């Protein structure tokens, strides 16, 4: 396994204001290395999504630090954080967030388009990404013409086309049946196995435990346990 692609150290994050202010993360430290698939598990309200948002540079921590590919995110302006996401992080969302008015091909291209890459090679790369997720035959399909599993695979293709070092997935199998859930996790595990990318999956779904290299348990904004595959205690 390689160096950490995303690393959080003693991260504290408050959400809300005034009387409604809550401490969503209470000193979380973890690292995601290239070549591993890590599951982040915990009950609802435990801080999983907040942690994912912080690791994905969408929320800034109130205390502690986050490093993405060795670069500290502290003090970066929103545009710089967007650039960091664009260059190093791929996202897979529970509800896919594909653009209904664009084809599968264009949805995937979008990840390079926002980087200002308008070269003709983009089309080849989008085709390769679609092939990786087994949807070479669906280039011209619109999201509404795809099944849930296919939509999620398009979302994965969008996350990987830019060679992001970290893939952050939020409940990627929650809306899928077992067969599609298995297919999606297999793709994510293959991506991790290639060695350069780290994949962090937030999940409630016990069916996907076998895919994990590590499992991190979070409760009340704290990491309570880290286990290796097979239940052995592991580095967090």
């Amino acid at each position: 396994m390689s160096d950490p692609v995303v690393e959080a150290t003693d991260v504290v994050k408050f959400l809300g204001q005034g009387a409604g202010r809550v401490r969503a993360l209470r000193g979380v430290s973890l690292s995601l290395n290239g070549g591993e698939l890590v599951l982040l598990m915990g009950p609802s309200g435990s801080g999983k999504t907040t942690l994912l948002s912080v690791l994905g540079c969408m929320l800034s921590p109130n205390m502690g630090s986050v490093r993405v590919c060795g670069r500290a995110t502290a003090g970066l302006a929103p545009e710089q954080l967007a650039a960091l996401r664009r260059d190093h992080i791929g996202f897979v969302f529970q509800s896919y967030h594909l653009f209904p008015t664009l084809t599968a091909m264009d949805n995937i291209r979008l990840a390079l388009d926002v980087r200002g890459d308008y070269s003709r090679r983009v089309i080849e790369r989008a085709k390769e990404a679609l092939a990786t997720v087994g949807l070479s035959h669906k280039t011209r399909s619109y999201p509404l013409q795809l099944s849930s599993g296919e939509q999620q695979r398009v979302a994965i293709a969008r996350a990987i086309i830019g060679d992001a070092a970290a893939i952050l997935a939020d409940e990627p199998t929650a809306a899928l049946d077992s067969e599609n859930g298995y297919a999606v996790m297999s793709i994510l595990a293959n991506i991790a196995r290639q060695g350069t990318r780290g994949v962090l999956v937030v999940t409630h779904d016990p069916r996907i435990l076998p895919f994990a290299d590590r499992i991190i348990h979070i409760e009340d904004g704290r990491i309570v346990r880290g286990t290796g595959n097979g239940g052995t205690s592991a580095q967090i």
Partner: protein
Amino acid sequence: MTRVEFISVSRQGLRDGLCRLREFTARMLIYLWRGAAFAVSLLTGRKIAPLFFKLAARNLFHDRLRLAATIAGIVFSMVLVTVQMGLFVSFRTMVTTMIDHAPADLWIMPLGTKCFEDPALLDERERFRALSVPGVAEAVPVLVSFAQWHIPSGGTTPVLLIGSDRNELGLQPWNIVDGDLYDLAIPDAIAVDRSYFERLGTSGLGDTVEIRDLKAKIRLVTQGIRSFTTTPYVFTPLDRARSYAAISPNKATYLLVRLQTGANAESVRTHLNQTLAKAEALTPDAFRSRSRSFWLFGTGAGAALFAGALLGMIVGIVIVAQTLYASTKEFSNEFATLRAIGSSSQYIYAVIIIQALMSAAIGFSVAAAIGKVVVKTTADTALPVLIPAGLMISLFLLTVAMCVVSAIAAIVHIVRTDPAVVFTR
């Protein structure tokens, strides 16, 4: 000490301003260069079109009903602005039409004259005073006066008499469509515009009519010499104009001055103003400007036209802003996703602004077509709508500006959207 500090601060401010201007210009040149290079790459097939064009188009055409409402709003607004501005241009041109067609180097008029149609009178003595000024070659009298035209079927209507002798320097009718200018020399001859035939109760050339109980015969017909006041112009030689208007033979409204070769208009004008007793001399430009200022702003007519145009623009901005905002709100998930996957703010602004520009282009095309129809249908009326090329270009730029300004509300909404919402939706 304070003065020195003030000067040094001002210089510093100036330097900063110049520096910023230089940076801005350099950045604009870089953008232009990149844009041109990108266009070449697209045309030569080395690059593919950015998706923000497609996204903007799809967002815009996604809801046809809303698009129709947006376009209707822009069209309504721009037709209103176009007609108001077309009327303004027409009005502005018409109020100086007589000044434009008089070949005078200088105009002499009674003191306090506000516009061409202001029928105050000069005494003949002013003409001799004017001719005594060095540099004045000729001073030709012109009479402008209201008179009553007897409609053959009964009743009277006012007309504005233009009395001028046939002279190189005189104020003669133009756009003659029937008859000959020499025919105005025939006793009792008058010239009227074809557009006023119905109003004057005449069928045209050869008709005998009455002006202030005196006979007159239409010997000349013009086309397009109309007054914005709706009072018809009637051209006739000076002495007959005086008779029709019951004005003594030593009076005139204007003296049209021709300068001697090489004379300086401004110094002659100054000299004239010192010499004339109850009159003043103006250059044609100054007289035009005074007439426009009186009719357009002194009477409130121009302000009313501008207010109409402004109202149209506000309606347009509100409608486009509302629909763009609604469209952006509908696609706020998509915009948040764009932000989450790392798009810059500029990329998202580009999507929204391209949407606005597309709306502007469609709306303007329809409004321009309607404007053309309005121009055609009002061509023969008392106040035709004029839309010269310059006005058309300005209106297009105005439509673009209006739509871009309308995009601000949508942009503000997007700026406030937190990309992290993609995890909770």
